């Protein structure tokens, strides 16, 4: 089969995408496919038009690749592709939209307020920050609404740190979230073809989430997570519900928090185009389920070629 592995592009997560892309390419070759790595650029549509791949493997992260833009073009070109359809990508990529969608489905997420850059500039939103702080409480987390890999994310301990954190987050997107910080255990539940894979518990070590995510040897995690059966079952159930509520297809990674005190589970975000780098959680979870990386890649391609179910 001729497979185009879409990667790179000009998003801030270009390097991460190239890591995923390279790993996927190697795997597809081992599986005997004709593999073409495609670095997304101005000639993207023409390149794919000339190449006419049987399937496109979306190994993009960040803007364009994760927000549904590329998926929309692939629909127009009539090329089957891995992962979710444009609408689901859009919903997952924008954390504000994702939160609203999840809330609509009765799925708990940490309390948050979203504010746009123009609200500060035109509407004097700054005057509401005290109320926001009172409602959400400190410490709180400030993050861009649309950006992956924890870029622009800051934990804020005191009210006076809020403005600088907002400016930092607004460097990445024109809308930001101020979110309640849940002191909880970080759980990551991957969904593959409507079934959950073993739960990963992440043990963050330092203060630089980006370095931890993408440096081999930096983050420690447990998979399957060392949790009681009821919590595991609840986490898996919640992840599947979130997957469906957002309309995801094929695969996705659902990040959850389990409150250290109450044990309550909340959904932090859903990644519709999860990373498949050597340090990403989804491949680890698959491996724990006895699905090696090549088998995982083969499965994703197979899912992409299944006739699309109704809408997304």
């Amino acid at each position, binding site marked *: 089969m001729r497979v185009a592995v879409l990667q790179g592009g*000009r998003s*801030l*997560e*270009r*390097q*991460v995408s190239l890591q995923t892309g390279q*790993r996927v390419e190697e795997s597809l070759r081992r599986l005997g496919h004709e593999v073409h790595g495609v670095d997304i650029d101005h000639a993207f549509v023409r390149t794919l038009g000339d190449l006419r791949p049987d399937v496109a493997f979306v190994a993009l992260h960040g803007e364009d690749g994760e927000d549904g833009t590329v998926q929309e073009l692939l629909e127009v070109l009539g090329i089957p592709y891995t992962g979710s359809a444009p609408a689901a990508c859009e919903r997952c990529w924008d954390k504000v939209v994702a939160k609203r969608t999840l809330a609509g489905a009765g799925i708990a997420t940490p309390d948050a307020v979203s504010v746009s*850059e123009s609200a*500060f*500039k035109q509407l004097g*939103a*700054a*005057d509401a*920050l005290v109320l926001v702080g009172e409602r959400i409480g400190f410490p709180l987390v400030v993050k861009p609404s649309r950006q992956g*890999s924890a*870029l*622009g994310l800051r934990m804020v301990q005191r009210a006076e740190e*809020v*403005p*600088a954190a*907002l*400016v*930092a*987050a*607004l*460097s*990445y997107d024109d809308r930001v979230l101020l979110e309640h910080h849940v002191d909880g255990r970080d759980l990551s539940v991957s969904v593959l073809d409507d079934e959950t894979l073993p739960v990963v*518990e992440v*043990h963050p070590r330092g203060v*630089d989430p*980006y*370095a931890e995510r*993408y*440096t*081999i*040897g*930096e*983050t*420690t*995690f*447990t*998979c*399957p997570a*060392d949790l009681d059966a009821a919590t595991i079952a609840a986490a898996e159930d919640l992840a599947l519900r979130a997957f469906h509520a957002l309309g995801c297809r094929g695969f996705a990674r659902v990040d959850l928090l389990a409150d250290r005190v109450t044990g309550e589970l909340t959904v932090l975000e859903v990644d519709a185009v999860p990373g498949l780098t*050597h*340090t990403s959680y989804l*491949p*680890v979870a698959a*491996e*724990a389920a*006895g699905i*090696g*990386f090549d088998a995982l890649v083969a499965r994703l391609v197979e899912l992409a070629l299944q006739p699309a179910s109704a809408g997304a």
Partner: protein
Amino acid sequence: MTVEDQDPTPSQGVGDDERRPTAAAAAAERSGAPAADPAAATPPARPVPAFDGHTPVQRPSGDLERYARLFSQRTRVMKTSAMRDLMALTERPEVISLAGGLADTTLFPAEDLAKVLSHMAAGDSARALQYGPTEGLAEIRPCLAEVMAAEGTIVDPDEILVTSGGQQVIDLVCKTLVDPGDVVVTEGPTYPGAVPTFSAYEANVVQIEMDEDGMRIDLLEEALDRLAAEGRRPKFIYTIPTFQNPGGVTMSLERRRRLVQIAHEQQILVLEDNPYGLLRYEGEALPTLLSLDGGRFVIYAGTLSKILSPGIRVGWALAPAPVRQKMVIGKAGSDLNSSSLSQLFVAYYFRERDWRDYVRQQATVYQARRDVMLEALTRHMPDGTTWTRPQGGLFVWLTLPEQIDTTDLLARALQHDVAFVPGRGAFLDGRGGNSMRVNFSGVTEDEIREGVSRIGSVIAEQLELYASIAGTPRPRGGSTRGGSSDPVASPGDTDRSIVPLRTAGRRRGTA
């Protein structure tokens, strides 16, 4: 990333308790067939590190473990960083990158290269294609001594160790002197390209603030006292005294004398890195530390990268004989010898052309570019932003109001197709968040004007946004108006700068 700044990832503080895998564990992993491991489905009883040494072999393991288990302890500090990945985006062709640190090699006449190379090929083809002595070829040494003499430093050509760029000198000095945890003293900010070298050797880096006269020797003495009280002594002090990278400042004569005196009194080695000394656009040349020291405690790193070509990878070192001997052995282990072809090219070039003439020509171009940059900064930078005014070299160092984080700012700047080096890459201790380095040698005057204007706009945008959020008076200046006038500090700006400051041609400082 520029060629010279391979990886500005700051990181240190590796605990001794986190040892690497034992040979046995690594061997077990190698021989295992992880995918087929029957224990794969068994949950471990306790959290286990994903891929470092403690991991029992019975847990499922993917590719990452297969390799990560084999990594050495020192790779732990070789981290992926957001800044490094952002820097990769600065290479997009549409980006005006003031992030480079490059000589402008388009200035070198192509016909000169062709002629000299053809003469070299005709006269010395076999030698150019052959291995050479680790210390370097005999005919290049007088050329390098000649370069040093142009700065008033007289050395014996026989004592020169030819290296693959000045970068290799830093590596060899670390290789020779640094055990894990040893203290190395540097300027703060320091050359971002040296950071991964210090990290790889697991040095404990102590950074000393600078002002417009270079490293603050009073603070150095305090730091040395503090270290002595802890029973520690630095292995060496790393400094770029002339047109410092990234600070752009030059160490005064008085401080040079004092530094050498301290080195003698306390018997501490100093690594003097001098890539830019001959690129002086104004002011009086100062003696090198090596010439003040007489070669007793100063190790000298020279390079042709900034005066002839970075592509030929020719640098050199001078060091006290016992240190040099170890460095030679270390170099043999790294690369046997620096490129014979490059060395012979240099020898032929020095014989057939006036190298000084090419340096003068570059200096003229870079001086004009520096002037354009300083003028553009005055015109486009918002109030509260300060910068150094280099008398030579390639860089200007900017300090922004405290509330701006230049790594985040780079993300925004890239949306406007302009780039710089965030200051954090020049520190190992988390400082530098509100500073940046900009380069003027590798870009045209028009690009400098446009690039600085765009950077000024994004800073002004950020400051305005900050003011609208923090409810403070809006900052003045920025690229929307011509030049800043009053030295009004922006809200939150505590004026804590690391290097000397200039605002709209006015000098301020922390002397």
